[in-house]
């Protein structure tokens, strides 16, 4: 480079230096500006919009997983499960991963999920939705809930071996990823439970059933009345997921385990329930009634050992049954009880000392005119003692006792025996029955009510009234739940027998039991209820059914009895609604009572109170004896 000369040279040199520095300044300025911009962006991202981006980041990674509790079991008193929850799956899909193969996937899944193709195709259609101003495609749809594990396994295998009719090795990486995701991630499961009733129809009305929804809400029976106890409390886990949606265990934040529902242990005995239901089925086949019910109670405690109604239903498929079959008629149907109600008026008369067991009442040879109405007996009877009124089930005799007792007193005893109010059993839909106030009685009511007309009761109320007589005059509250247990077996709540009130003095009850013992004899109305090894005390009932305000030629037939009569272990009620092939309680209900009682006594190994007749010596004994002679 040539040296500059003079002032001009200096100027050139000076300009050259300035230009060099200007470049430096410009570069510094540019770099400074860029750095400033970066700094600004940094501050903007890290400070100014920190909350916004932190929320977005957490939305992408943080997940709250809900732990659903397992619904508690319902068990009988011996621990036999009557309702149990088993693991199942909710089958879900990501429509965005299925894309154009929707129809193929639908055709494969429909038979496995047992749903129609149109429904599935509609569910698998990708839907657009807006969120925070952005348009997204739905990535989660539920295809079916309560799917058994085996079905899910089939779905998984089918999807993983899905053939789409293209040579995938020739595809580009994006298409390969699409097919890989379709096979492994497009259809995925979530945990679920299915409520299962292993006994199927066994004790269906008592156990009840749950709704088929996500929450398994109890709709009837114990499932409904103990729903909150059975349901348990959900838990949750707040955690972070990686890009492949795997949980990052070290980043777990909150982890609260679900508290499974409590097990409800019933007083019911599945063995006895099975006996009752099988004998009712035999009775139903023989008499073809509209319905047939039976309750078995331990009189001293009020524990219900069996409760059955036919027609019944399978709680695993409640929708397959009619509404009539779903109804627990034992507590929700009322009817005039008929002659079984005579126990109330006779007990009342004896307890008030207005009558004695041997006092004679003229039964008018089957006709008695009172308040302009003629009352009848099923047979013409002359004078009968109070005990014989029970034995023969004389309507006129009972009416005359009622008249002597008086309206107010009779009404009080009816209420005292628990009629006209709910028994308090731990089941939903119990009705109180109909007991009119005395002011609403007609003139003939005092003669009709003692024979079980003009009053409507439930089968449960009637059997509990008989239990009060079996229990030395103490009315007990029916008890269906024995205890609530934690899943581990620890008892949380223990229910105790609850006496309601005393309905009569023990001396009265002894006289009453003596009278009731004469019913299952050849002189009584229920010789078919007699047991070989136990003394039975009971009462038959045959009530005409009323339709459109008139009595018609249809009947409620019943027998309620307890045994051993002097130390009662079981009280059993059998009720038939409109039986064919006979309509008297002694002909229809009593044989069913006998069959149930014999098998139940055998099952419970009850000690007989009738000494067996000496058996004929066996050949072996005779031979041995002869040998010594």
């Amino acid at each position, binding site marked *: 480079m040539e040296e500059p000369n003079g002032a001009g040279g200096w100027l050139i040199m000076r300009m050259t230096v300035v230009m060099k520095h200007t470049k430096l300044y410009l570069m510094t300025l540019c770099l400074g500006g860029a750095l400033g911009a970066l700094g600004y962006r940094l501050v903007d991202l890290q400070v100014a919009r920190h909350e916004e981006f932190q929320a977005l980041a957490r939305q992408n990674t943080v997940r709250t997983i809900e732990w659903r509790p397992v619904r508690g079991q319902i068990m009988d008193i011996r621990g036999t499960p009557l309702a149990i929850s088993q693991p199942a799956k909710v089958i879900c899909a990501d429509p965005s991963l299925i894309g154009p193969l929707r129809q193929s996937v639908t055709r494969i899944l429909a038979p496995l999920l047992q749903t129609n193709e149109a429904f599935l195709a509609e569910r698998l259609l990708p839907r657009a939705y807006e969120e925070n101003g952005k348009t997204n495609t739905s990535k989660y749809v539920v295809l079916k809930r309560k799917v058994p594990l085996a079905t899910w396994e089939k779905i998984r295998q089918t999807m993983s071996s899905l053939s789409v009719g293209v040579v995938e090795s020739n595809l580009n990486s994006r298409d390969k990823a699409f097919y890989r995701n379709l096979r492994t991630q497009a259809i995925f499961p979530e945990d679920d439970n299915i409520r299962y009733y292993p006994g199927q129809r066994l004790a269906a009305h008592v156990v009840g059933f749950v709704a088929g929804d996500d929450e398994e809400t109890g709709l009837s029976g114990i499932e409904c009345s103990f729903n909150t106890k059975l349901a348990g409390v959900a838990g949750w886990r707040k955690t972070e997921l990686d890009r492949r949606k795997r949980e*990052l265990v*070290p980043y777990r934040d909150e982890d609260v385990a679900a508290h499974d529902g409590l097990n409800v242990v019933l007083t019911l005995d599945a063995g006895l329930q*099975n006996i009752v239901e099988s004998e009712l089925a035999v009775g139903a086949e023989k008499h073809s009634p509209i319905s047939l019910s039976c309750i078995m109670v331990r009189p001293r405690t009020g524990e219900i050992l069996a409760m059955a109604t036919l027609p019944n239903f399978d709680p695993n498929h409640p929708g397959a049954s009619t509404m009539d079959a779903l109804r627990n008629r034992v507590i929700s149907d009322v009817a005039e009880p008929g002659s079984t109600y005579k126990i109330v008026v006779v007990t009342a008369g004896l307890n008030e000392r207005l009558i004695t067991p041997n006092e004679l009442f003229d039964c008018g040879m089957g006709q008695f005119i009172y308040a302009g109405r003629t009352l009848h007996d099923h047979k013409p009877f002359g004078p009968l003692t109070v005990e014989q009124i029970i034995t023969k089930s004389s309507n006129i005799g009972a009416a005359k006792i009622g008249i002597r007792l008086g309206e107010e007193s009779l009404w009080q005893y009816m209420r005292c025996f628990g009629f006209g109010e709910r028994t308090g059993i731990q089941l939903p839909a119990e009705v109180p029955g109909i007991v009119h106030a005395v002011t609403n009685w007609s003139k003939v009511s005092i003669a009709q009510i003692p024979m079980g007309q003009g009053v409507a009761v439930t089968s449960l109320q009637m059997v509990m009234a008989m239990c009060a007589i079996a229990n030395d005059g103490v009315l007990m509250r029916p008890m269906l739940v024995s205890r609530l247990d934690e899943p581990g077996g620890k008892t949380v709540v223990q229910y105790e027998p609850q006496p309601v009130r005393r309905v009569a003095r023990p001396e009265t009850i002894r006289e009453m039991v003596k009278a009731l013992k004469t019913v299952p004899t050849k002189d009584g109305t229920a010789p078919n209820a007699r047991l070989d090894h136990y003394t039975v005390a009971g009462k038959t009932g045959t009530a005409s059914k009323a339709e459109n305000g008139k009595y018609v030629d249809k009947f409620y037939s019943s027998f309620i009895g307890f045994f051993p009569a002097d130390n009662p272990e079981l009280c059993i009620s059998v009720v038939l609604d409109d039986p064919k092939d006979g309509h008297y309680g002694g002909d229809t209900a009593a044989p069913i009572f006998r069959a149930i009682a014999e098998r139940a006594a055998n099952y419970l190994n009850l000690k007989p109170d009738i000494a067996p007749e000496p058996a004929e010596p066996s050949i072996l004994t005779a031979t041995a004896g002869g040998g010594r002679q």
Partner: protein
Amino acid sequence: MARNRKNDAALRAGPVLSAVALCALFAGLGLGYVWYKDQIDLLGRQIKDHESRLAVLQGQNKTRRVQLAILISPGALDARVKQLKLGLGPTALSQVIRLIDAPDYEQAAKAPLPPEPRPVKVALAARKN
């Protein structure tokens, strides 16, 4: 001079060793931190695996509980007995002999004696033959 150089070398070794020690410390801390993080990750994965295994076992347990419930339900037992034609049934009350654990001898003495077994002609005739 040589002595001074020797002293200089001794003086210079101290900072070098300190620097090396410091570097080693930082390196150790760094490696320890990585190892520690790795252990956390490893244990997290192990926990997840065990939880998955536990969930599977609990699921199997529940399934077996259901199977057991089905097997012990009275209806299923009745059906099985009928299917296998075992001829099983409850013992009739007439077949049950009840024994008293602690007999009351005074009461027993008062009780009527059981009937004497009667010889059966058929059996005696058989003996003659």
